């Protein structure tokens, strides 16, 4: 593990779960510039661990330390699996991405600049004025990432980024995320099932086995092919 940027998130003896611990004694350290794949079967506790690490669920034991730049959450990006809102009203890609900046104090010009840069970075510039509901699933995922990246995050958490995407689209999507990571130094955490993608793009892998989180070398799951 050669990638050692600034420590962004660190857990100490963390136990996570709603009532009963799903995971115990989690020791996890995320550094800037890393690409983590958090692997585990459905219901193993991936989302619960991420929600606890982000401060949205109280830990059952232990603690989480966040880098000071993440205290206010302004440097945090989150990509949910689905865009619940986009189908109910006609919202354009540009509007959707701009909503992700709604809590940040900035001028209109800066907001537009950040929004347009994030849309372009995800290869969606031509679809900027298109309605999100009319996009393909792959394009919608890109729009969700653009909304998160517009915040210029230091930590980007992506829940099941390639669920329901075909293999080719998944690979292109993951490759674009990897390019963004290299360009911006953002730490990306994928909660995922896809071993192939993990083996291709992970710099680090955490695997849930029983009630433990094991940090393993990407080589252990068939990777890496990515220079760290």
């Amino acid at each position: 593990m050669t990638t050692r940027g600034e420590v962004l998130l660190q857990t100490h003896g963390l136990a996570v779960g709603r009532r009963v611990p799903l995971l115990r004694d989690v020791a996890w350290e995320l550094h800037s510039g890393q690409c983590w794949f958090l692997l585990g079967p459905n219901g193993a506790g991936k989302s619960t661990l991420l929600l606890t690490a982000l401060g949205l669920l109280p830990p059952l034991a232990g603690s989480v330390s966040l880098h000071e730049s993440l205290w206010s959450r302004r440097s945090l990006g989150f990509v949910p699996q689905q865009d619940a809102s986009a189908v109910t009203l006609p919202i354009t890609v540009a509007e959707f991405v701009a909503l992700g900046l709604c809590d940040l104090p900035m001028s209109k010009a800066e907001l537009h600049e950040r929004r347009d840069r994030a849309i372009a970075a995800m290869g969606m510039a031509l679809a900027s004025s298109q309605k999100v509901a009319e996009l393909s699933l792959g394009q919608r995922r890109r729009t969700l990432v653009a909304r998160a990246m517009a915040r210029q995050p230091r930590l980007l958490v992506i829940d099941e980024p390639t669920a329901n995407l075909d293999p080719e689209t998944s690979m292109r999507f993951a490759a674009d995320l990897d390019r963004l990571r290299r360009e911006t130094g953002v730490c990306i955490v994928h909660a995922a099932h896809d071993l192939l993608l993990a083996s291709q793009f992970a710099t680090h892998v955490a695997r849930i086995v029983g009630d433990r989180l094991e940090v393993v070398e990407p080589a252990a799951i068939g990777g890496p092919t990515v220079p760290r």
Partner: protein
Amino acid sequence: MMDWLGETMGLFFAAYGTALALALLLPWLGVLLVLRQRVFTAAAVAQSAAFGFAVGLYFGIGDDHSGHGHDGPLLLLLGASFGVFAGMFSMQRLRTAAAGLESWSAVLFLLGSSGSMLLLSNSPHGMQDIQRLQLSSLLGATPLDLAIAVALLAATLVAGIWCGPRILLVASDEGVAQVLGLPVRAWRTTLGVFIGLCLSFAIHATGLLFAFGCTVLPVLFVREVAPSLRAVLWLAPSVSVATVGLALWLAQLEGLDLPPGQTAVAVQAAVVALAMAMRRR
């Protein structure tokens, strides 16, 4: 048409002014409800407020024996408190599964409808009053109603300008809003209270049909034709005001003499149906 406007505005200034102010205000609430896929919540909240008015009438609160028995401010407060409770409840429940939420809205709606009728079934004027609330009568609105409608409209505009995008994010994507550190629970409660207040007042001043219609129908129409969310936000109230204005004019035409509230809702519903049919082609 201008002659008609001059003549009737003098006579029904408060009633028509209240109707137009609510026609401007309610679609913005409708945008939030449609964003959260909770269209039916508007009817459930309004019906709960009607139940609140029925409880007040049952205990003789605000009854002025003038044939407009639901005019007292105390009665308005009681109805509003039921509406606010239902609004908060509906917003809080939005965290759970969609089918469950629809069920709760249906229960609130049916409980409010049947309960208010049952409560006043033996009251001399009560039944008439509650029927007037559930159907729509724009003509009973008073200058106080107009002042409240304008105040609620002003509050909505200020909130929209001050924190519109944050409201839209909380309404549309609570999970992301929470991760980004927005106080989602406080926002949800505030929105629930405000929606409850506005709809309770709207049903008090104009009746359930008009309140529900103006909340959802313009938004459903605009959803079919607008190219963006920004367009929805200005087009929905514009369409609402235009259709209500048209309905008020139609309703008084020689030989028609229609009830204005029902006419307004019928015009809006026809416009929505037309837009949906044209879009499907």
